[in-house]
């Protein structure tokens, strides 16, 4: 991933803040001079292959370096340190929910839906350590994720009501200036936010905001609301980096076969 972090990134990060490289600019603080090129739909062009470069998939909150869930993997399986992506760092869990989060953490090796190759849900899909591609078509915007072949179509027309609950949600988008705002409902609440066991329920409502910062970066923000798990809404934000390799393309990461032994090994013929 080194090639992704070009000099442009460093310049941007330096411009944003000297205090915390992990915290992207808040809304409205993006460099005012930058005007994103237009896509065919007349809006800011978000087409591209993007990826988060942080450790949020390990833990969206601040975390020290520590052993991972699999000591057998040595340092390969260790959790790297990282500054969180949660605004203010605290997640306002209701007391019962906080207990569940702790239990999730304790059982993460087998219970994290990522270990089972389940669809990542929203917002986690956007900061897994794998690329995703935005296809901004005149008929709507498609997010294609490498991990688990997951994808979601963002309806830019008349908002659709969520049908049955799903992993990737019902996605209704609109533009606020050059920011793509996606209202995500109908989430089944089975996905986690990270490998640390942060979670929500099927009452989860996520409002995402994607804004071009410059040719190589998007700012990503998501407001997370779930009155059955959190006492108030909370927010994450981070930059997403454009893949600039000449041959950048998505490759299939169909992970089902790597989870089968974990899921079904106990039922095999001995």
């Amino acid at each position, binding site marked *: 991933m080194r090639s992704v972090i070009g000099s442009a990134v460093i310049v941007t990060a330096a411009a944003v803040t000297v205090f915390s490289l992990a915290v992207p600019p808040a809304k409205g603080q993006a460099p005012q001079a930058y005007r994103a090129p237009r896509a065919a739909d007349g809006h800011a062009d978000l087409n591209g292959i993007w990826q988060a470069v942080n450790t949020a998939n390990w833990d969206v909150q601040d975390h020290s370096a520590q052993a991972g869930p699999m000591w057998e993997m040595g340092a390969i399986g260790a959790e790297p340190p990282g500054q969180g992506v949660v605004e203010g760092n605290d997640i306002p869990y209701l007391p019962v929910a906080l207990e569940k989060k702790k239990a999730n953490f304790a059982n993460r090796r087998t219970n994290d839906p990522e270990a089972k190759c389940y669809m990542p849900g929203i917002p986690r899909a956007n900061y897994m350590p794998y690329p995703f591609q935005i296809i901004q078509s005149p008929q709507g915007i498609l997010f294609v994720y490498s991990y688990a072949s997951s994808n979601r179509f963002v309806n830019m027309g008349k908002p659709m009501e969520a049908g049955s609950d799903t992993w990737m949600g019902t996605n209704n988008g609109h533009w606020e200036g050059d920011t793509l705002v996606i209202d995500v409902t109908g989430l089944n609440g089975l996905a986690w936010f990270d490998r640390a066991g942060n979670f929500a329920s099927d009452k989860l409502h996520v409002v995402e905001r994607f804004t071009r910062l410059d040719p190589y970066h998007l700012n990503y923000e998501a407001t997370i609301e779930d009155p059955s798990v959190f006492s108030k809404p909370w927010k994450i934000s981070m930059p997403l980096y454009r893949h600039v390799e000449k041959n950048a393309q998505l490759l299939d990461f169909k992970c089902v076969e790597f989870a*089968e032994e974990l899921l079904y090994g106990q039922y095999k013929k001995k």
Partner: protein
Amino acid sequence: MSHRFLAGSVAALALVSVAAGQAPPSTAKAGTKNWTAPKTPWGDPDIQGIWPGNMGVPMQRPKTLGDRTSLSDEEYAKRVTQAQKAAAADNEERAPKDAKVGIGPPSYWTERGKPTRQASLIVDPPDGRLPPLTPEAEKLRKEFRGGRGVPAEWAGQADTYEDLNLYYRCITRGVTGSIIPVVYNNGNQILQAPGYVVIRNEMIHEARVIPLDKSPHVGASIREYMGDSRGHWEGNTLVIETTNFTDKTSIGSNGVGYNGEGGKHSEALKTIERITRVDENTLHYEATVDDPKTWTKPWTMLIELKKDDNYQFLEYACHEGNYAMKDILAGARADEAGKGSR
């Protein structure tokens, strides 16, 4: 597929629609006269929209039909009756006492589609049937997995999850198998952006991003279930060449003529897909399957897709809800322990 074939099948389809009381679809010729293929704002032919599959044409042609690409009135009427019977059976609240009880979905999930006169999805070779396997492929299929053959529809043997095929394992249906119509979740959506076409399949949730930049394929050691696709336009036809397949996948099935084993192929597989919008609401999807290590010659399917922008994709969370896998394996173990009952 030769142009002669295309013309033949288009003419046949025109007959069907007249018989069904619909406006006849434009032939390729009439299309250029009466209908102008739309373009995207950046000038590519516009094939965007939702194009669900329509089950009801068998993969392989019954031998009795020979080289005929379309059904006679009598044969078509029979196909319609069969489809109606199947649909009626789907709507029965209870299965008949003598019905085979399987582990398939409830019958009210099924989408039988509208029968057409197309004799078979395979249009080349001219007899509409799969060409013979190479001796190498015959040998491989016999000797695979210590003589047990390639994983097929579940037939009672389930020592491990690898005894089930890729469908049961919810891994993928592959490039063509994701488009070949089956009994449910036949959604296909095409989206375009400058330099890209994406084919999104409801089945197992695929979204294949096809670059149009003529860049070389990824390195030969990268192998993928959906392969590595590159597309280009030939007039109004999108031509997609796909290589770098893993030999773990298979060509697919339409639940009628090529079910179960699904067409095990080698890593030498190359598919050439040709997608043409022949009128406002009709897409011709042709796929040529070329794998000289498996089939003695290439073969081609033609699948007609009708536009339906009201079709709603459902999230096909197959693996996430794959209770069948656990139950099949656990059931087999219980059976061995003498705890099961049939």
